[in-house]
C-alpha cells in the first residue's frame, strides 16, 4: 500500500530530505507569524511584502546571489518603509503600498527579463515567482533555519504584547507598552517569514502559506495558542503532502517531468480553508436574547 503513496526512492532522495526539513521549519514559522498577521489585520501588508520580495529575488538572481538574500533584503527594506510612512493610517497605507507595489513588480519584470537574457535559464524566473523546495541550495539551509528561528522567537516573545495592542493600542500604551516599536518588530518578523515562505513556494504565493493555515485555524479554534498549534499543523501537513505528491507527479502526464510542488501546497491549504466553511460555526446559546445592542455598538456613534 505505502509503495503507491511513496514512489521508489522518496526516502533516499537528498532533495526530498532538504525539502522536508526546510519546509517544516518554514511552515511552522509562517503559521505562527500568520496567526498574528490575521489578528492584527495585516494580511495585505504580508501580501505586499511578498510582491516586493519578488523584486528582491529577481534582482538577486540578476547579480548572481542566492534569491533568499534578495527576498530578505527587499522585504526588510519594504517593512521599514511601510513602518515609516505609517501603516497605522489606513488610507495613506493603501495608497503608498499600491504605488510601491507597482514600482516593485515593474522592476521585477525588468530583472527577470535581463536575468534570463544573460543566463538563458527560464527555470529561474519560475523558481523566484513560484518557488521550488527541490532546488534549495544546501549552503543557504543554515541561514534559512536561523532566520526562521529568529522570526519565531520574536513573535513568541512579543506574543502577549501583540495581542494586547491588537485589542486596544490605547490600553497597551497606557500600560507602558512601546506600541510602535512592537509593531515595527512584528513587521520585521513578518518580512522574514515572507522571505522564507518565498523560498519554498515562491514570492508570489508566499502569502498562501502565511495566511491560509492561520485563517483556517482561526475559524475552527477560539483561543490564540490553540490557533497557532492548529495553523502549524495545517501548514506542516500541507507542505509534507505537497512534497509527496510533487515527488509522485514525476510519473504523471503530460510531460512526466513532475508538477510544481507549490501547486500542491497551495491547493491543499486553500482546500483546508474551504473545508473549514463546511463546519458550522459554534453558535452561542446563552446570551443571544440579551444582545439587542450589538448593531448599535458596531455603527459609528
Amino acid at each position, binding site marked *: 500500500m505505502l509503495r503507491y503513496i511513496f514512489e521508489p526512492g522518496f526516502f533516499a532522495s537528498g532533495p526530498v530530505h532538504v525539502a522536508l526539513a526546510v519546509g517544516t521549519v518554514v511552515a511552522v514559522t509562517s503559521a505562527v507569524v500568520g496567526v498574528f498577521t490575521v489578528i492584527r489585520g495585516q494580511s495585505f501588508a504580508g501580501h505586499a511584502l511578498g510582491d516586493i520580495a519578488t523584486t528582491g529575488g529577481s534582482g538577486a538572481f540578476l547579480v548572481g546571489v542566492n534569491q533568499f538574500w534578495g527576498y530578505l533584503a527587499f522585504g526588510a527594506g519594504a517593512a521599514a518603509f511601510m513602518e515609516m510612512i505609517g501603516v497605522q493610517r489606513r488610507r495613506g497605507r493603501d495608497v503608498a503600498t499600491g504605488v510601491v507595489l507597482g514600482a516593485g513588480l515593474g522592476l521585477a519584470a525588468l530583472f527577470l527579463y535581463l536575468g534570463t537574457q544573460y543566463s538563458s535559464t527560464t527555470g529561474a524566473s519560475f523558481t523566484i515567482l513560484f518557488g521550488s523546495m527541490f532546488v534549495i541550495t544546501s549552503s543557504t539551509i543554515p541561514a534559512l533555519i536561523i532566520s526562521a528561528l529568529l522570526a519565531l522567537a520574536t513573535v513568541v516573545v512579543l506574543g*502577549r504584547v501583540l*495581542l494586547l495592542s491588537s*485589542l486596544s493600542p490605547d*490600553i497597551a500604551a497606557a500600560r*507602558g507598552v512601546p506600541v510602535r516599536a512592537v509593531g515595527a518588530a512584528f513587521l520585521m518578523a513578518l518580512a522574514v517569514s515572507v522571505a522564507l515562505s518565498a523560498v519554498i513556494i515562491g514570492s508570489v504565493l508566499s502569502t498562501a502559506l502565511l495566511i491560509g493555515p492561520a485563517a483556517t485555524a*482561526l475559524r475552527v479554534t477560539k483561543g490564540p495558542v490553540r490557533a497557532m498549534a492548529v495553523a502549524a499543523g495545517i501548514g506542516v501537513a500541507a507542505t509534507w503532502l505537497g512534497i509527496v505528491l510533487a515527488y509522485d507527479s514525476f510519473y504523471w502526464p503530460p510531460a512526466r517531468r513532475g508538477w510544481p510542488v507549490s501547486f500542491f501546497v497551495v491547493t491543499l491549504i486553500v482546500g483546508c480553508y474551504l473545508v473549514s466553511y463546511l463546519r458550522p460555526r459554534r453558535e*452561542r446559546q446563552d446570551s443571544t436574547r440579551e*444582545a439587542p*445592542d450589538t448593531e448599535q455598538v458596531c455603527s459609528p*456613534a
Partner: protein
Amino acid sequence: MTADLLRLDEVAVRLGGREILNDVSFTIAAGEFTGLIGPNGAGKTTLLRVILGLQPVTRGSVLMDGAPRAARDASIGYVPQKLVIEPDMPLRVRDVVSLGVDGHKFGIRLPSRARRELVDDMLTAVGAQRYANARVGELSGGEQQRVMIAHALISRPRLLLLDEPLANLDISSEQGIVSVLARLARAERIAVLLSAHDMNPLMPVMDRIVYVAAGRVAVGRTDEVVQPDVLSRLYGQHVDVIRVHGRILVVAAPQDTTGRDEVEGIDDAGPREGASVVR
C-alpha cells in the same frame, strides 16, 4: 496634604493651536465615584488621556499619590471608548481578562491554576462568568463592557478610568454596568472616574461630578454643580437645569441665530461656544 489619590493642577492642553483643556483642577480620593460629565467634544476623552499619560499637557501637573505618574503604572485601570472587537478576533473572554494581568509583559506565560481562578473570580465579580469561554467579539456591547471592566480591574488598580462606557447600551445593560462599578468602588475602595454625556444613569451612585464644557470644568457634589448659575458660567451662556420625571436635563436658552433649544441627554449636544472661566 490631604490623602488625594489623583490631583490635577491647572492642566491645559493645546492641540494644533486649539485649546482643548484650560485651567482644569480637581482631586479624586480613594473609593470615590466621580462622573466626568459634559457634551460630546467638550474634552472628556482628552482629559482621561492626560491622566493616563497618553496626552502630554501644555501646562499644569498630574499627580498620583502626590508624585508624577510613572510609566507602566498598574495603579490606573482603563476602559477605552468605542472599543470595536470584531467577531473573528480569536480571543475568548478569559483570554482578554487574563491579558489584564500581564498583557504588557514580554515572554511566554505557562497556564496556571492560580491564574485561572483569579480570572474566574474577576469574571464572577462583574457578572460575566456565563460567557467566560465565548469569543469576546461575539458578545453584545454591554457584555463586552463587563469583560473590559474585568480586564481593567484584574491588575488591582486604585483608580479606574472609563470613557463613555454607557454609550450605545440599552437601559438594562446600562443599569447593570453602573451597579457593578458602584459595588466594586465601595467594596474594593477603587476610585472610579467615568465619562458620560448623560449624567442621569449615574445620579444614584455619583459622589462627585466633574462637569466639562468648552475645555473647562466645574467640580463638586452633584447638587452643587448641576445648578443653572454654575453651568451657565461654564458654558458662557444661559442654561437652565430642568428636573422632570426624576431626570435632569441641561437646556440652553434659545440662541438669537438659531432660535432652537438644545437639550442635553436628548440630543447630547450642549452649548459649546464662548465659555468663560469658572471659579
